């Protein structure tokens, strides 16, 4: 027995409670019920902020909503803004200038670079190299951590320039942006992006050489897919089992439901199946649309198949997406010509507005009802973490028996590492699990 103080199961049961998945936004917990060495159920609770925002935006204008939803997350505000603005523009039938579209892709690339660089270098890499934190990693591998920070800085710079500030950007407006950007402003990103591309390519080589824990499974994967580009702002919702939906039609296939062990809603297919979002799903479903530089980097790893079946390989998927985002951003910068106006004029009115985009950690969906005055009457915001929750639980059910015999600190580390592979919001705390095991068998 490693620890006590837990609910006692019936004879032959093992109950594992991992309490206090601490994070700024709230707390969560993981509870595993084990019978005869097999995990019967894994219940993961992750705090979910958007529920509050769904009520907060009611009565607001679309432009106000874009600024408000950016506050949901300090790491991926652009994802919330992009999903909302596309929903409104699609619902209201507002055409978008191609250069504005390109700038939005650049902005989203910036967020992907920030988020993926943070996750790969400061959160996930220490796990693989046997360090307790990024700080300990930096003591022995300072150059690697510096490279990660420089990569992240390139992303910050894009978001700060296009978004108006590095955290919770403010420039996105329905129809375009709050201002136009000079070509000289945009081309100031050229050199930092060229340097970032070198780092991103080296990152792929670095993480492809890491040895992941042995874990294989076939998950149902879901992502956006676009006919001519790697999915970010646009694309159809597709899956590894043949789903093909417009980005407005998420509710036709998926639904959110309350589960007894969590205050947060959990999304599943309408037939109850879990599904997995994120870099591994995107690469599995849209690798043929990667930027050529990123496609070549992925091919060099020879790991496309393993990315699909081993969640620990998500670090490779993230690194390939870093290359993609940096190379895409560089192309946008080179091709940029200022549009004639910062935003397309539009008229408020009633509509149903819905859209899905790809946040760094997976697909995000928004749906709004606008009333006769063009104000929000109803909102639905479905973040990637709540969609991935059921898939994470399914993977934990398969994986946990491998670690139940280990000392609690080792078991905790292994489970943390797996959960971190999905990059849920809670994974950012360096040590977010407290493992208690009681064996009553």
């Amino acid at each position, binding site marked *: 027995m490693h620890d006590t103080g837990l609910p006692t199961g019936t004879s032959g049961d093992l109950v594992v409670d991992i309490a206090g998945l601490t*994070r*700024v*936004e*709230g707390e969560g917990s993981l509870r595993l019920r084990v019978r005869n060495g097999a995990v019967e159920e894994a219940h993961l609770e992750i705090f979910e*902020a958007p529920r*509050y*925002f769904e009520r*907060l935006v009611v009565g607001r204008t679309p432009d106000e909503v874009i600024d408000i939803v950016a*506050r949901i*997350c*300090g*790491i991926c505000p652009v994802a919330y803004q992009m999903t909302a603005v596309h929903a409104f523009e699609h619902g209201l039938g507002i055409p978008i200038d191609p250069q504005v579209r390109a700038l939005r892709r650049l902005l989203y690339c910036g967020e992907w670079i920030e988020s993926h660089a*943070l996750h790969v270098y*400061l*959160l996930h890499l220490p796990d693989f190299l046997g360090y307790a*934190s*990024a*700080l300990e990693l*930096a*003591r022995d591998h*300072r150059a690697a*951590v*510096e490279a990660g*920070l420089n990569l992240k*800085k390139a992303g*910050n710079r894009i978001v700060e320039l296009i978004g108006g500030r590095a*955290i*919770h950007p403010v420039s996105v407006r329905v129809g375009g942006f709050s201002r136009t950007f000079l070509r000289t402003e945009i081309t100031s990103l050229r050199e930092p992006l060229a340097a970032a591309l070198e780092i991103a390519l080296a990152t792929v080589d670095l993480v492809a050489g890491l040895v992941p824990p042995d874990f294989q499974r076939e998950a149902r994967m879901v992502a956006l897919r676009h006919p001519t580009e790697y999915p970010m702002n646009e694309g159809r919702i597709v899956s590894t089992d043949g789903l093909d939906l417009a980005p407005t039609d998420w509710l036709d296939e998926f639904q959110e439901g309350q589960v007894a062990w969590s205050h947060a809603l959990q999304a599943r297919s309408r037939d109850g199946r879990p599904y997995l979002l994120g870099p591994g799903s995107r690469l599995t479903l849209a690798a043929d649309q990667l930027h050529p530089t990123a496609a070549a980097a992925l091919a060099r790893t020879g790991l496309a198949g393993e990315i699909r079946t081993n969640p620990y390989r998500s670090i490779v998927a993230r690194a390939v997406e870093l290359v993609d985002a940096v190379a895409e951003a560089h192309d946008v910068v080179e091709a940029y010509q200022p549009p004639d106006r910062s935003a397309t004029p539009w008229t408020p009115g009633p509509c149903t507005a819905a859209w899905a985009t790809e946040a760094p950690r997976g697909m995000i969906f928004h749906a709004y009802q606008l009333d006769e005055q063009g104000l929000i009457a109803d909102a639905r915001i479905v973040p990637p973490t709540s969609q991935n929750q059921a898939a994470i639980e399914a993977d934990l059910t398969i994986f946990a028996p491998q670690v139940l015999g280990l000392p609690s600190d080792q078991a905790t580390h292994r489970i943390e590492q797996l959960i971190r592979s999905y990059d849920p*919001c809670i994974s*950012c*705390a*360096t040590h977010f699990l407290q493992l208690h095991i009681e064996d009553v068998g």
Partner: protein
Amino acid sequence: MPAPVEVEVFICGSPDRGDDGAAMTACEAVRTELPAGVRVRSVGQLDVDDLLAVPPEARVVIVDVATGIEPGVVLELPLAKLLEDETFRPRSSHALAVSGTVALAELIGERPLQGRVVALGGTRFAMGDGLSGPVAAAIPRFAAAIREAVEHARTEGAAACA
């Protein structure tokens, strides 16, 4: 010509999240009283880059709300103590903890950072909450502690230069 930066004050936290907004509230109360040479920046979540950008001779004051301290209690300590004291858990964000950010900045920047941390014990951090009772009542003391920490940092800096 602006005065050179002697002390850089980093305000951490978000006004959307209950007690997490207390650092901003308290700093607003003292901002106009701070002398020239003190630069105040609201950073939300403190980043390594923020600390790497601190001028070489400048001191830092990090203002944050924390758990691990009784709600409403104000704590002021040297930056070095932050790295040693595990009971102090700043409500920093989604990425690295403040202590990890400081340590990483020192390592990458190849210099120790000098300064103070001013923390207030908080209890309520949910989105949309206002300040809790103990934290709201502590704002004047929190503001006074920020003022003192800035003065302390300036004095230390002047002594180091002498």
